[in-house]
């Protein structure tokens, strides 16, 4: 475990922002922290990155106490703040150079690191421009790059894709995957379910300062008792076939939306919907189109809290 949190709590005044959470983050994984606004994600990772002192609880990095020994931990930690935290009047290169300098990098070594980081974040052609002239996506990329210079063991990213175009977002997601393949452990915070689904091997779902569920995506989905939904449209009225649909294996419930339009909920493992579709097609009753909605973390969250992630 690179990070272990036990009963971690943070109170601001009399507001409990993080309410006694437990985390176990294994080395070499991408771990997601998913939750709506104000869930306590930033507060949690601010404690891990030594910015905030926990009100109570224990927080270990490679077995060492983060609060007591920040000196040993800081050099191995990369932190990407939720906001763009760059000197806008300096160039991208200067930002990389000076922040790298804070980690004792200098000379040829620093130059090499800047070259490799700017290649990873895909921004080497604009390094000589001032950050204030960058687009939102480029700023986000530099914001990440600055945290990579000292080649940390653990990188903590707080919503690194907020407010940017899809192209930059995809690039960032690829970057995260690449870093992980190179052995870096990543804590990835987001309220975009798709990002967490695409990246993370395991997920913690937070709400109101508490971890309300955790595990791999499959575990979360099966725990939450969510189901695949199949939506079908026919060119005839399907009323008379409904009874036959119901008899197909793994069909849990059927809702008729309009005369020629039904939704079927499938139980069982991830492939049960294929069999259902196959059965219905073989009945040859004029299926025009269908689409499948697999259960996702959004639905898990909805089940757990009765609210959407981005209400």
């Amino acid at each position, binding site marked *: 475990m690179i990070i272990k949190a036990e009963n971690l709590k943070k109170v601001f005044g009399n507001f409990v922002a993080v309410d006694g959470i437990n985390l176990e983050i294994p080395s070499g994984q991408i771990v997601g922290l998913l939750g709506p606004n104000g869930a306590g994600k930033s507060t949690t990772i601010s404690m891990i*990155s*030594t*910015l*905030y*002192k926990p009100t109570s609880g224990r927080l270990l990095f490679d077995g060492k106490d983060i609060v007591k020994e920040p*000196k040993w931990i*800081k*050099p191995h*930690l990369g*932190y990407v*703040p939720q*906001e*763009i*935290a*760059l*000197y*806008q*009047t*300096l160039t991208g290169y*200067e930002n990389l150079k*000076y*922040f*790298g*300098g*804070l*980690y*004792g*990098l*200098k000379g040829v070594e620093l130059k090499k690191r800047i070259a490799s980081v700017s290649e990873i974040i895909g921004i080497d052609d604009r390094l000589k421009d001032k950050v204030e002239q960058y687009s939102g996506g480029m700023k986000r990329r530099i914001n990440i790059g*600055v945290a990579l210079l000292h080649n940390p063991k653990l990188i903590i990213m707080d919503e690194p894709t907020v407010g940017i175009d899809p192209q930059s977002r995809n690039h960032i997601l690829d970057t995260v995957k690449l870093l992980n393949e190179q052995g870096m452990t990543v804590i990835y915070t987001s309220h975009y379910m798709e990002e967490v689904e695409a990246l993370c091997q395991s997920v913690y779902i937070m709400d109101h300062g508490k971890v309300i569920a955790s595990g791999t995506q499959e575990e979360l989905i099966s725990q939450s008792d969510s189901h695949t939904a199949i939506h079908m449209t026919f060119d005839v009225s399907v009323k008379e076939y409904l009874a036959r649909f119901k008899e197909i294996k793994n069909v849990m419930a059927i809702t008729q939306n309009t005369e020629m339009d039904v939704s079927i909920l499938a139980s069982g493992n991830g492939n049960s919907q294929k069999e259902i579709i196959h059965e219905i097609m073989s009945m040859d009753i004029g299926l025009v189109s269908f689409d499948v909605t697999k259960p996702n973390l959004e639905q898990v969250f909805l089940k757990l809290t009765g609210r959407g992630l981005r209400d």
Partner: protein
Amino acid sequence: MWGLLKLKVRLMKDYMVLYLIMIGMSLFMAGIFGNTMGGNYVATLALVDLDQSIESSEIITNLTSEHGFNVKLMSYDEALVEVENRNVISAVVINNDFNQSEKGIEIVQIRETVESFQLSRILQSEVEQLNNIVSLSDRILEVSDANNVSIEPNALRSSVRTTYLDHWESKKPISLIRSVHNASSGLSAGLGVHYTVGMTLFFVTYSIMFTVGDILEDKRIHTLDRLLVSPATRRNMLTANLFTGMLIGVIQLVVMVLSGQFLFGISWGEHIGLVLGIGTLYIGVMTTLSLFIVSLVKTMAQLGSLSPIILTGMGMLGGCMWPLEIITSKPLLMLANFTPHKWALSAIEGAVIYGRIDQNTWISVGVLAVMAIGYLILGERMMYFKSLKQN
């Protein structure tokens, strides 16, 4: 630590315009004040000579030839009109038998100014000097009369005068005090120094305050978070901020000392080390004071509105704008003691204008050092407290 220092020094570039304005302002103000009140400007005064004696004419001659005043002789009534119309800085009335009576010389003026203050000091010392010469001559006459030696009184007086002046001129303590009045450019030398030093001390505080306050900017743009997660410690950050504050302060000081020498013709002479030393100590105080003030506010905008009030107030109280000698209010003079400006100014002026490096100089140094340490402790504690609270 080095990485952090390099970063902070690089960021100073963003404040370049502020620094240039501050240097420009201190040059401009020192030039304006130092020159209109000195330099080619000659203060005119009305003189009413009711005594009409050799002594009174000696004083009048000295006012013109030695002290560089433009003296207009006139009647009392005419003089009053001239004062009222502000054609003259003041009217000097030399009463009959002035050197033997309480109010021998009277000064009529609308209000106290630097020149009229200097004038009253000059007259004071002229009368004292005259009285010394007269009483010395009288005593010699008495003795010689008693011994039946006849001496021509006027010749004696003139000889006594020459001896007296020669004698005192060569004795250090007195000749130095007199050098204020005897300086070739009259009033301007003292004022030139005063305004150059005063304006430097005043304007340098702004550069320092905003340089130290850069930590607030780091907070605003969230780079503070990056600094805090890096291996740089809070103490490193504080040190780096104090260092840059001191750095810009010392640069500005050196620029002004050089400008004083080459633009305003001030000769710092052998006191250059003392000027730089005390100036640096003062900059140390203002840097730590800035740290303290910065720890009290939350944003750069708050600092921007608070600091001019504090800094201008302190500068005015401390005598940067006008010499404290013309202030008579006791409470104001009391308050002046709490400003580092007063101590730095009086030590530097004492040395450069009056050539005086004595106990008072070291008291000033001591007070400045205590202030620097006090504000450092206070500011450091506050910053620490604040960062704990914020976290």
